[in-house]
């Protein structure tokens, strides 16, 4: 067995830089994002989806099943499409009806399975599911684009490319549930299977298959085939709100692992001593393509549109420099440090893109197989040291000051929708969710004894500090485990947390609607089923139509 010799790398960016909301909120997808990784894996170890059931009326209502194999296992997307009145269509978690409901089924569903899913899936959170149901999701049509594409196909024409580019998807998922919710399978049931061990692999596979379904459905209703170039540019939209943000706080080991993969990839690429002329050309052409992608990224929210325009300008003006010089990527990276965070993060994505051979293997670390059991050993002296060296960001603020505790996270009784409240203006803070990590850490610091005390004894006296102690223990071996910002401050923007997680998924075309939620596109430009045999189809960073 060959020894694995890790490639050289520069120092990693410090967590004090990387784990700030302002930078996390500037992240872009990379070739190590989950959707990129899974489409590569599908091409290498999967079969294209086959339509194993198509029970749809002419208007596109009924049910469909698409089946594929992936690393030798069989999976099926079951899609249930029902008529929906326009005034019932809502992207909110509190909606109760949708255009389509989906289950990713473990195997090929028989008639009984299908009948069960047909009843339960449209109920979504109100339904019950089994361990054969791996993922549960639902989606709503982009009504205008849907109608346009159907009409064009019915007239024997192709839809308008500009309109396709403007919207970017035929349907928008408004939730993709995994890991045991509502009785579906725990991810541990399949997470030791090749292909599905990566975080959110099952969910990403589901999204890719839902996209496939939307293409098939619109072609069915329109009675014609879409041009593959246009079809490829139709991803799946998503409306993402606060529900996603707490995950980053409640999964510190996973967050660390995801960020560590990204930072390690950057460090490896920066350490490259020389690039070939072909690689240099590739970088230049990717930079140009990214400029085209930025040109096609327009959003209604003015502040965000201005950020995009500023980025377009600085991107165009920035020169990649002499790529024939030694360590050209590190030189380019250093020069970019005077640019905005968003520029730097886009540059990071560019720098990673040509070097799959060097970094793609890191995707194996995009998971947490071990967890982090609480260590009931050591003394409070360890905690004191850790607080001093790594947690000034948490212990500095005064959390009694109104601005520093202005917001609180909570779960609404209504459909269990996560919300962010204003502590000084509305009730509910007595039921606050425990996401105020920084404040808890400072509270721990205030109660630590002068002389070292065993952890168990300290917690017996102060059981309320156990969570903060756990976080400090995790941080000792997981440098990127904490978002180093005050999540209850008046200026905490959940959108920054959403963008971080969504870029790790592989989302593009961020379209923030407020500081609380955003629309995005997933799998725009991704390989189609028919593309799985074509290696060029994996080159879908910064898609341009």
């Amino acid at each position: 067995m060959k020894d694995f010799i890790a490639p050289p790398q520069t120092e990693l960016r410090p967590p004090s830089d990387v784990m700030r909301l302002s930078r996390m909120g500037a992240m872009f997808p990379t070739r190590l994002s989950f959707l990129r990784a899974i489409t590569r894996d599908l091409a290498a170890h999967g079969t294209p989806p086959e339509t194993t059931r198509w029970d749809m009326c002419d208007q596109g209502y009924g049910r469909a099943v698409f089946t594929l194999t992936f690393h030798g296992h069989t999976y099926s997307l079951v899609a249930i499409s029902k008529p929906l009145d326009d005034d019932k269509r809502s992207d909110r978690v509190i909606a109760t009806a949708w255009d389509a409901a989906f289950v990713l089924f473990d195997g090929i569903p028989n008639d009984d399975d299908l009948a069960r899913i047909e009843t339960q899936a449209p109920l979504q959170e109100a339904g019950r599911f089994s361990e054969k149901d791996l993922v549960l999701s639902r989606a709503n049509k982009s009504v205008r684009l849907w109608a346009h594409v159907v009409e064009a196909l019915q007239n024997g024409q192709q839809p308008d490319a500009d309109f396709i580019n403007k919207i970017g998807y035929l349907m928008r998922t408004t939730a993709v549930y995994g890991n045991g919710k509502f009785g579906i399978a725990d991810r541990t049931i399949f997470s030791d299977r090749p292909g599905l061990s990566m975080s959110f692999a099952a969910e990403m596979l589901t999204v890719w298959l839902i996209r496939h379904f939307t293409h098939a459905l619109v072609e069915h209703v329109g009675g014609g085939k879409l041009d593959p170039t246009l079809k490829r540019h139709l991803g799946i939209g998503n409306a993402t709100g606060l529900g996603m943000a707490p995950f980053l706080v409640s999964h510190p080991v996973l967050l660390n692992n995801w960020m560590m993969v990204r930072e390690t990839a950057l460090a490896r690429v920066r350490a490259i001593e020389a690039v070939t002329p072909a690689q240099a050309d590739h970088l230049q052409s990717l930079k140009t393509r990214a400029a085209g992608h930025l040109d096609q990224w327009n959003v209604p929210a003015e502040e965000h549109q201005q950020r995009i325009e500023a980025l377009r300008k600085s991107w165009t003006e920035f020169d990649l420099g002499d790529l024939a010089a030694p360590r050209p990527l590190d030189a380019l990276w250093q020069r970019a440090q005077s640019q905005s965070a968003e520029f730097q993060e886009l540059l990071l994505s560019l720098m990673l893109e040509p070097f799959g051979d060097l970094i793609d293997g890191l995707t194996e670390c995009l998971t947490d197989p071990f967890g982090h059991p609480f260590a009931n050993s050591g003394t409070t002296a360890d905690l004191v040291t850790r607080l001093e060296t790594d947690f000034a960001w948490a212990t500095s603020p005064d959390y009694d000051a109104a601005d520093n505790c202005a917001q609180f996270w909570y779960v609404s009784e209504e459909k269990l929708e996560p919300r962010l409240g204003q502590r000084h203006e509305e009730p509910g803070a007595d039921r606050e969710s425990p996401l105020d990590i920084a404040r808890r850490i400072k509270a721990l610091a205030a109660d630590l004894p002068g002389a070292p005390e065993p952890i168990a004894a300290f917690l017996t006296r102060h059981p309320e500090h156990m969570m903060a102690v756990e976080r400090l223990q995790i941080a000792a071996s997981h440098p990127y485990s904490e978002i180093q910002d005050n999540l209850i401050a008046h200026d905490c923007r959940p959108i920054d947390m959403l963008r971080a997680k969504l870029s790790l998924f592989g989302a593009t075309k961020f379209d923030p609607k407020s500081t609380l939620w955003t629309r995005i596109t997933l799998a725009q430009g991704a390989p189609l089923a028919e593309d799985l045999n074509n290696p060029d189809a994996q080159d879908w960073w910064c898609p341009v139509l």
Partner: protein
Amino acid sequence: MPGPVTHSINEIEALATKAARGSGAHAAQAAAFGKATAKHLAAKRPEQDLHAALAALPEGPIQTYAFAPDSTTALGQSYTDDTPLPQRVTPSPALLTDLADRAHNTYVPSTEESRTGGAGAGLTDND
């Protein structure tokens, strides 16, 4: 669906965690109780231990077993048990009702303001 309603491990852990927090457990202790509940059910230990521990909050074993479990008790064993979990567990309706009622204390009643101020829907965070 025919037969008893089985549950995933994750959803029982999440529900029991909220039940504990909704009854006054500290956050980390509530999470540890969530994990122990799944193990307790998987090992078919008495559900009464779970009811009693929740009823004792904000005092009692839930606040301490997370860092100092008493392995002479059945509940304590569930905290330290490292037997692999089954795919499903089947809590009784009575336990589910107790857990749901207690978990309800972690939800904030909705008002028109909070609904209109709330955000759009999204990909879930896997509790």
